[in-house]
């Protein structure tokens, strides 16, 4: 639990056997219940989330509580395991509120030292409640916390937050306000779905008008809790990006072997082979960066903020490039609605804005590595 401050051994960048078992379970579930056709069909209904899938993933496999200590009803695992889950969710562009509820909201609540927060954590860990922080998905670690919501007295909250991810699936919203952090029941807020670039992680505007909230933390504690959660989520998002990029590469390679033009598989043309080989290198490198971030978060390494910033600065670009190459190297089929490549491109591009752009994270690297701007 406590962070070792002594100089540490090199990060463990491999996967443990337990992590591989977890991966197998999640992948099998997603293969059975979350294929691309299903994801697209749900997205077209305007209700992308699949509550039954979430229940199985969160409660039956127990992934929602990986970051939650056992005494609060969680699995008492850690960031390395959550990262493996996110790799698989990225590979499937799964429309489940894992990053928002099981990572962001969970980490915020872990940073709040109150009985109410503990009770809510248990509900999150069991998967019975979905919770999302009422902050824009673009909010980055190291950025000032916006406070558009004001306490109009006695814990009734008023204000509007845009681009809140997964709010349409949430039962509880975690609302940072001027007087601290509050838990607000979703039915006490007005959640208006937005048309998002990413069809699989829906956005909404959350409007509060004298909504009753339960105070979980004072302003200073709230800032610290949200900052810590943003750091964790940004670090783990890198693993989602790795999984996404890997799917794009695998599909592109498979397509290139089977698609014939000029009496040859297109994958035998050097111009295309080299693009895929470069992509493979990028994905292998992104995996090392994402594993380093997950391990640094899990061990509380003193250089975790730098390692996370490096992973985000790198993995965002790899995921976008992989998805863009996937579209291009599939040729015309890559531009169609029926082929799932577009779901991955949209998620990859949205992910590159989520929790800070690569440019924002490079700015953090500049601070941590003492390479100041002019």
């Amino acid at each position: 639990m406590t962070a070792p401050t002594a100089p540490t051994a090199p990060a463990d960048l491999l996967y443990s056997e337990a992590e591989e078992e977890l991966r197998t379970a999640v992948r099998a579930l997603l293969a059975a219940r979350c294929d691309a056709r299903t994801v697209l069909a749900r997205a077209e209904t305007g209700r992308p989330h699949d509550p039954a899938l979430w229940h199985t993933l969160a409660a039956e496999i127990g992934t929602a509580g990986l970051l939650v200590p056992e005494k609060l009803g969680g699995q008492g695992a850690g960031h390395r395991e959550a990262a493996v889950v996110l790799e698989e969710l990225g590979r499937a562009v799964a429309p489940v509120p894992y990053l928002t509820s099981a990572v962001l909201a969970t980490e915020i609540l872990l940073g709040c030292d109150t009985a109410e927060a503990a009770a809510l954590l248990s509900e999150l860990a069991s998967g019975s409640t979905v919770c999302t922080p009422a902050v824009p998905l673009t909010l980055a670690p190291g950025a000032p916390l916006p406070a558009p919501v004001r306490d109009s007295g006695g814990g009734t909250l008023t204000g509007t937050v845009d681009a809140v991810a997964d709010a349409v699936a949430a039962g509880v919203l975690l609302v940072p306000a001027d007087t601290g952090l509050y838990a607000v029941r979703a039915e006490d807020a007005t959640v208006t779905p937005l048309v998002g670039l990413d069809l699989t992680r829906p956005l909404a505007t959350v409007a509060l008008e004298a909504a009753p909230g339960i105070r979980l933390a004072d302003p200073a504690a709230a800032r610290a809790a949200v900052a810590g959660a943003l750091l964790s989520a940004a670090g783990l998002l890198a693993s989602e990006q790795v999984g996404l990029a890997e799917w794009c590469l695998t599909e592109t390679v498979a397509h290139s072997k089977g698609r014939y033009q000029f009496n040859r598989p297109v994958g035998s043309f050097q111009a295309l082979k080299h693009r895929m080989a470069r992509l493979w290198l990028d994905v292998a490198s992104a995996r090392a960066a994402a594993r380093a971030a997950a391990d640094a978060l899990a061990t509380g390494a003193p250089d975790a903020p730098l390692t996370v910033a490096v992973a985000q600065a790198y993995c965002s670009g790899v995921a976008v490039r992989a998805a863009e190459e996937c579209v291009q190297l599939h040729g015309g089929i890559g531009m169609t609605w029926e082929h799932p490549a577009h779901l991955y491109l949209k998620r990859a591009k949205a992910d590159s804005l989520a929790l800070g752009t690569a440019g924002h994270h490079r700015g953090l690297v500049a601070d941590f590595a003492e390479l100041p701007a002019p």
Partner: protein
Amino acid sequence: MTTGATPTTPEALRARTRDLLTAHPPARTDRTAFLRARFDAGLAWVHYPPGLGGLGAPRTLQAVVDAELEAAGAPDNDPRRIGIGLGMAAPTILAYGTEEQKQRFLRPLWLGEEVWCQLFSEPGAGSDLAALATRAVLDQDAGDWIVDGQKVWTSSAHNARWGILVARTDPALPKHQGITYFLCDMHAPGVEVRPLRQITGEAEFNEVFLTGVRIPDTHRLGAVGEGWAVARTTLMNERVSIGGMRIPREGGMIAPVAAAWRERPELRTHALHQRLLELWVEAEVARLTGERLRQQLAAGQPGPEGSGMKLTFARLNQEISGLEVELLGAEGLLYEDWTMRRPELVDFTGRDAGYRYLRAKGNSIEGGTSEILLNIVAERVLGLPPEPRDDKDTAWKDLSR
């Protein structure tokens, strides 16, 4: 030295190394004498057979020996200077050599008494090594091979006592089949080494002209016509040796750029800042990728990432050194010295940015061009179909050159 059962545990190797250090205290022992004793104790390369500098122990245990020796301040055999012998000639001789060849060559090679060079590339055979045209014809009466041809990019040829050489012994066969592998005496009549001046102004490499050079049949390595298989062993060992080092965060080429950025604020611009940060991140990710590869190897799960590390480091070295020249402003217009010199080592540290920039251009060419390595990744790692080719079944003499 102690004899008896072959020690293959870390404890046994540590004890054996300490015995060596006790019998030959580094502070009071001549360097060559110490190295010779180390070889004879089987602690030169522990995975080699007994009698040939090893103990038949697992290769990974060499690290145990090296750590003990380093801690005791023992002299080393200058592995960077004799890298071609250690990294390429030795494993090939071990795999294909006769008992006489192993006994004759491995000990002086390891001691650094005999430097080796690699006579592979030719002006017409670089990436397409099997297209080589250097001829070796057997003189039936004398039992010698007579070699004629030209080799190029030969590091260390001017210091070398021996060269590993591939030559064509049957032009009527397809190009991979008519090749034979030899151990060439660099002091033999007809071997002429000429410095090849490079882009940096230095002559780190050589051209080697072979004119009527006689090589006794006892210096043939492997069977006649089997040279391609032998050469593949050499080349695989070459690749193994690249990218295996552990480097600290901000080690390597990024270090001098980062230092200049910190120490000289007057050089900073916003555009350079963005590029510096991108490259700093990429260098850190490359470091982590190398570390992950090392951990996979240590866990007995070798990944294919090694094929890619050279590609990454070549690109990064070039981009980072290019940025460094630009960062230095007017100073970047200067170059340290155009005098032709013959360095024994490629040493990026301690050299100016301009040198690093120019020398790094070779990183994507030497030891396999980046284009060839991308093909290898695409075909062997991703399983993409090979390029169609029509040279495999054609007699070498009928190929266009």
